[in-house]
């Protein structure tokens, strides 16, 4: 990175830090206000643990707004100080300066992705519960009256829906080992054949094409709270038995596409580079908020449309990104006309 680009990047970082601190301070204020309300209403006290647990998701949510505001403020300040023109006269094209903003948006994308995947919830929520559990596919149904951990189930019924007939297993306890369910001291019988007697077994192992522990884990956990890679592994595991839950797949890709809003929003800011007018602070704030709100609304619209099967589920998390990319490409194809100094008459940087 050249010295000039480093200078621009430093400016970007300063503004980003300022907005970041301001947003976190605002969040803390709102959190305190909210907690004070619940203290007045219900007498519940402020929880520092909950407060800090919320911060990563807040960081993920606010980064697109901060990215937009930062880039707009940096461009506004540089235009106000005539720095953009000085750079151009020195043979550095505006797009080269803008590439620093693009690089910065990629950094915030990474930050938002990491923040969105920090989970404070227990890795396996089953550990704390002891309620009944059911899992069904087109080939089998597992019902457990109680579960004590990821591996141990109690009062279990397993119904195998096979083409040659249905078999049912009952066992007071069962253990999960990967893709094997080990039933202890139970019975098995065929449902169709009334003459088939009940067979007692000491221990029997039933193998599945799916890791049952992971499947149960997915079924009782909240996909929104599950980190990307864990959720991806869980959904891949489920797809082995033909379960492809679209909503959860959308939620999975949302974990990537939302942080990428930072990058695609920064692409949409390109026209501001060529406005060549002094951007006032209030104009910058209003433009930044409006653009972020618009992006957020269209992003949410895409997600909702996908979850309700109105558009293909794989396109749902990327609706805004597609529009932003198309608009940016369209703008870039015409941007040569907008350059103050055409590239053909620019001095050679090497000379």
């Amino acid at each position, binding site marked *: 990175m050249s010295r000039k680009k480093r200078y621009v990047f430093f400016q970007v970082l300063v503004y980003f830090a300022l907005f970041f601190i301001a947003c976190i301070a605002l969040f803390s204020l709102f959190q305190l206000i909210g907690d004070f309300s619940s203290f007045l209403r219900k007498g519940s006290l402020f929880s520092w643990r909950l407060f800090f647990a919320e911060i990563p998701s807040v960081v993920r949510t606010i980064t697109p707004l901060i990215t937009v505001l930062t880039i707009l403020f940096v461009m506004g300040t540089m235009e106000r100080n005539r720095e953009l023109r000085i750079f151009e006269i020195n043979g550095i094209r505006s797009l080269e300066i803008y590439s620093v903003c693009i690089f910065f948006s990629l950094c915030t994308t990474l930050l938002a992705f990491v923040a969105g995947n920090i989970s404070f919830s227990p890795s396996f929520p089953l550990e704390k519960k002891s309620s009944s559990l059911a899992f*069904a596919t087109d080939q089998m149904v597992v019902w457990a009256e109680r579960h004590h951990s990821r591996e141990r189930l109690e009062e279990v019924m397993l119904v195998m829906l096979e083409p040659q007939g249905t078999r049912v297993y009952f066992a007071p306890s069962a253990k999960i080992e990967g893709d094997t369910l080990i039933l202890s001291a139970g019975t098995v019988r065929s449902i169709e054949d009334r003459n088939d007697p009940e067979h007692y077994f000491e221990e029997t192992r039933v193998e599945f094409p799916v890791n049952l522990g992971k499947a149960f884990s997915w079924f009782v956990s909240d996909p929104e709270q599950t980190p990307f890679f864990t959720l991806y592994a869980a959904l891949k595991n489920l797809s082995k038995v033909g379960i492809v839950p679209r*909503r959860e797949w959308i939620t999975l890709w949302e974990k990537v596409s939302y942080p990428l809003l930072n990058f695609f929003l920064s692409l949409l800011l390109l026209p501001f580079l060529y406005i060549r007018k002094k951007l006032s602070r209030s104009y910058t704030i209003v433009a930044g908020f409006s653009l972020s709100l618009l992006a957020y609304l269209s992003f949410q*619209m895409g997600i909702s449309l996908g979850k309700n099967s109105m558009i293909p589920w794989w396109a749902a998390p990327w609706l805004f990104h597609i529009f932003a990319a198309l608009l940016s490409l369209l703008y870039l194809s015409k941007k040569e006309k907008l350059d103050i100094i055409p590239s053909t008459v620019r001095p050679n940087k090497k000379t």
Partner: protein
Amino acid sequence: MYGEFLKNWYVAIGILMVLFLIKPLFLLIDLMVSHFFSFAGITAFFLFAFLEVSAYLLLLSFFIAIFAVVARMHSDREFIIFPVSGIRGSLILHTFIPLAGLCSLLLLVSLFFIVPQVKFMKRTLISASAIINPIKLFQPRSLVKITRDTTVYIGGIEGVRMKNIVLSNRDADNIVLTIAAKEATASVNSQGNLLLRLLDGKIFAASVREGKALARSEFATYRLIVPLQVAKRKISDRTVAESFFFGLLAISSQDRLPALFELERRFFFLLLPFLLLFTGYYLGVWMRISNMMMVVGAGAGVGLCAFYLLLLGEALVYQTGSLAIFWLLPGIWVLSLFFLRRRFFYVS
């Protein structure tokens, strides 16, 4: 002066409407794609959302406009020019009293007639739209936990028909039913229960706790009723916030404190325009700012203070069980206005 008030009021109500309608906008997007797309439905929803917050919009915009006018006049030294010209500063304050009265009258209509009805209609609209299409609950090749005791695997969906269903359900007698059906349709009855009509399949009943198979059968059609959680409360029942004046009095015979506090809260809102008029006037004289963004910020600050005053009042009422104690807080507010009046005697 009214001209300047109106100019500021338009700006203030515009900004506040954007701020207050962001949340309904998000909800609307979800509702539009999940439940209704009709123009009438969307218009009704937005109208309800707007009318629901109309009281807050009216109060805050009134305060901001008063504050902006007085602050601008003070920054232009008009409070010095008027007394020099023989016009008392308090005349400016008195000019706005009819406006505060009008605001109070509009609040009376809004809080006692419009807002309760609108809240009720909005809830009815959302509840009705939430149970319009139960097929939205299901997705092809997915596993859905409808309730704590009902889990369904859906192989596919063609139009309104689900294909290759495998369902497990526990009934009230702790009997677990395992049902496999080739096709199924879903609907919701008026009680809010999900009706699953399963076609061409087999059913197996067992007591898992006893480890016993109880019965097995094949069926052409089987109806299963699953109680959904969406309609636990009857839609026709009005909550305290949705009740009119006489409705609140009727509720108060069973649930005294919440109903009477709601009445108290509404009467407090009727007084607020006058309190905000005096507060805006003295703050305008004190702060001397002309930037609209700062004026809106100050308006938001005062709005937040009023909100906390209400909360504190509510907490006091519920802690002590006495409704009268609520008026202590507006009393303190009025007292502080007297101090401000003494501090700015030259404009009073």
